[in-house]
């Protein structure tokens, strides 16, 4: 997708300006080929994606490992410098393209964004107490003095359900369970009152029994504080619970994006169909038309100008090979699909079903 396709970019649900407006975001990692040779090959981890996130909205980024969803999340919190594209960030008193900011500007931007990490066992320094961990953003941004920070941390620990909070303040991470740690991670993410949080599979490492409570906590806090989430996950059930909209990524491209229920009930891209048909249904009598895909994800090193999904698509045709990767097109209520053969596929599946 190019900047010219801006008009086709998926729009936010409300009429107000989006919090994040991402246009043609790219991350091409060079493949090192020795000390003195300039790299000629690039891994197109994220290859020109565009989307918007409204204030208070949570967007689910779904895809299999290696599709670039974590890379996207890391670019949005400036852990990675994008190789191309723009990230327009609009807060109340803040409006700028943050894709290529540096130094002090990045530090200023980071007062407004946070990230929750996948592994609660690695996202906290084992040598620092919970107070140190949660108050770190306040300390590095020089907000308040120590007693004020302590009050703020206590307040947040209560908010995330770690009570009595005084008992947790000077514990070490290893004294806490996985679920408690992830609650601490949520507290740390909220301590600066951010407008936007990237959550990189925050519940995938947790026990199923505590997963739902952490998800409930995050969803509740998002509503309460008007925080927008980019919720990265490979689990459609989690995305359904957490997200207002879902974007499906495949090999560095968004192949389908739309409201959660729309995507889950009326998937149109063959990859989304395959993902959904892989979700087990606890009802043996229900008949489904399964979309089978074969093989694995190929490496996106200098990809040829054709549909990214062509190798694994059961509906691939000549048009998919001769044209570049299809742009996102509107196919329903704020529902965008990147596929040349949507109509043919719909017809074929309808015919098969009967």
């Amino acid at each position, binding site marked *: 997708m190019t900047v010219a396709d801006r008009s086709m970019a998926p729009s936010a649900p409300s009429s107000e300006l989006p919090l994040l407006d991402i246009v043609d975001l790219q991350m091409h990692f060079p493949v090192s080929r020795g000390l003195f040779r300039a790299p000629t090959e690039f891994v197109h981890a994220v290859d020109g994606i565009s989307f918007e996130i409204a204030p208070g909205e949570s967007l689910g980024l779904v895809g299999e490992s290696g599709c670039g969803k974590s890379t996207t999340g890391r670019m949005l919190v400036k852990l990675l410098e994008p190789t191309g594209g723009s990230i327009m960030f609009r807060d109340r008193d803040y409006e700028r393209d943050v894709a290529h900011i540096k130094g002090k500007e990045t530090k200023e931007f980071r007062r407004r964004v946070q*990230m929750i990490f996948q592994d609660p066992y690695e996202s906290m320094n084992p040598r620092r107490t919970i107070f140190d961990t949660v108050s*770190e*953003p306040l300390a590095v941004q020089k*907000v308040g003095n120590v007693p004020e920070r302590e009050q703020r941390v*206590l307040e947040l620990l*209560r908010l995330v359900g770690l009570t009595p909070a005084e008992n947790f303040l000077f514990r070490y991470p290893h004294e806490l369970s996985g679920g408690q740690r992830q609650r601490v991670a949520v507290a740390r993410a909220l301590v*600066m*009152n951010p407008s936007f949080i990237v959550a990189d599979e925050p519940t995938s490492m947790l026990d199923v029994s505590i997963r739902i409570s952490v998800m409930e906590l995050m969803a509740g806090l998002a509503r309460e504080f008007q925080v927008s989430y980019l919720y990265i996950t490979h689990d459609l059930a989690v995305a359904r619970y957490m997200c207002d909209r879902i974007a499906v990524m495949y090999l560095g491209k968004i192949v389908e994006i739309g409201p959660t229920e729309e995507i889950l009930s009326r998937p149109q891209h063959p990859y989304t169909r395959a993902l959904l048909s892989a979700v087990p249904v606890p009802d043996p009598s229900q008949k489904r038309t399964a979309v089978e895909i074969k093989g694995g994800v190929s490496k996106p090193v200098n990809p040829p100008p054709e549909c990214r999904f062509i190798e694994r698509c059961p509906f691939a045709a000549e048009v998919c090979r001769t044209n570049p990767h299809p742009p996102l097109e509107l196919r329903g209520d704020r529902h965008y699909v990147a596929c040349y053969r949507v109509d043919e596929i719909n017809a074929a599946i309808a015919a098969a079903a009967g």
Partner: protein
Amino acid sequence: MTTTKDQGADHGAATGAVAAGSPASDAFAHQPLWKVRLALWRRSLGKTWGLFRENKMGMFGLGLILLFACMAIAHPILMATVWDPKIYDPVTGYSAVELQFVIVEGEPTDPSTQISLQEARLRLNPTVKVGQTVTIPVQPAPPSLKGPNPHLLGTDPQGRDILSQLLYSTRAAFFLGAVAALTTVLIATTVGSIAAYFGGFIDGSLMRLSDLILLMPLLPVLILVSALFEINMVMLGLMIGVLGGFGGVAIVLKAQALSVKVKSYIDAARVAGGTHWHIVLRHIIPNVLPLSFLYMMFGVTEAIAIEATLSFFGLLNVPMTWGIMINTAQNNGYLLSGTSYWWLLFPAGLAVTFLCFGFFLVGRGMDEVINPRLRAR
């Protein structure tokens, strides 16, 4: 509390009201932060000590080190109270112990009680005869408890008390070990952490420098340096520290720092807005430090052994060390005398061996505390 959003403040008031009813059961609540930190530090130290105690070898090593520490402390006390500086000073003291010998024909079978006729005539007067008992002042004198000024470990070939020299040198060994080990750890931790965190050109140049120093043979270099310049204990300690710190230890600590660098709490600190120095100082170094302390222990061992070697060659400008004690024996031709002059060689040699052994065992014990995988369970 300045908050970027006012909802946070509202919410804080609401939860604060709820929390007022909950009991503050934790002992740390409502205490100044430094007191809490001190208590936490003591608690973690206590835990580490508890783990270390279970390690018998480590405890034996610690016992050895404490023994040597007592020896080091004992010397100035003994000099001030019991020992006469004229006789017992490790460098300038002198006493010739008068011993009785029986003159025998030919080679004496027991050199501590017998003397050959030729030697007796040479040292006393040409009139002495075989079978006579004579009194001769000797240096080196063997250990004895007799006399007004007993020499428990005998005297050296210049009539100086071996025990006094041994105790005096212990202090020097500790001092050198401390200087060298601290320098090593300071440099290696900084170099390793910075190289691992920043990577790229900084990493490349620091690591090539480390390779270079690692390849340099430490002892010959130090021999060369001490032959060219007059070096004392502090300089030697610093040199061993710098060379050791830039070499192998820096590479090991860099590997540890690399494994810390990829943890997501580093990313979390970056997202929080932490500067590079904040991350290196607050996250990387604290997690590398336990391994640094381990290498500090091995660094002490190395420094003491190197010092003994250099002063054995007489290359150090120091009054007295264990190496100089052996050097004295060597210069006077007693090094190859076997066990008949054992008090000239064994006290110093064993002291070097056991102090190094002690630090090594403590290092091993710490290793088991730091690497839970090594713990025998």
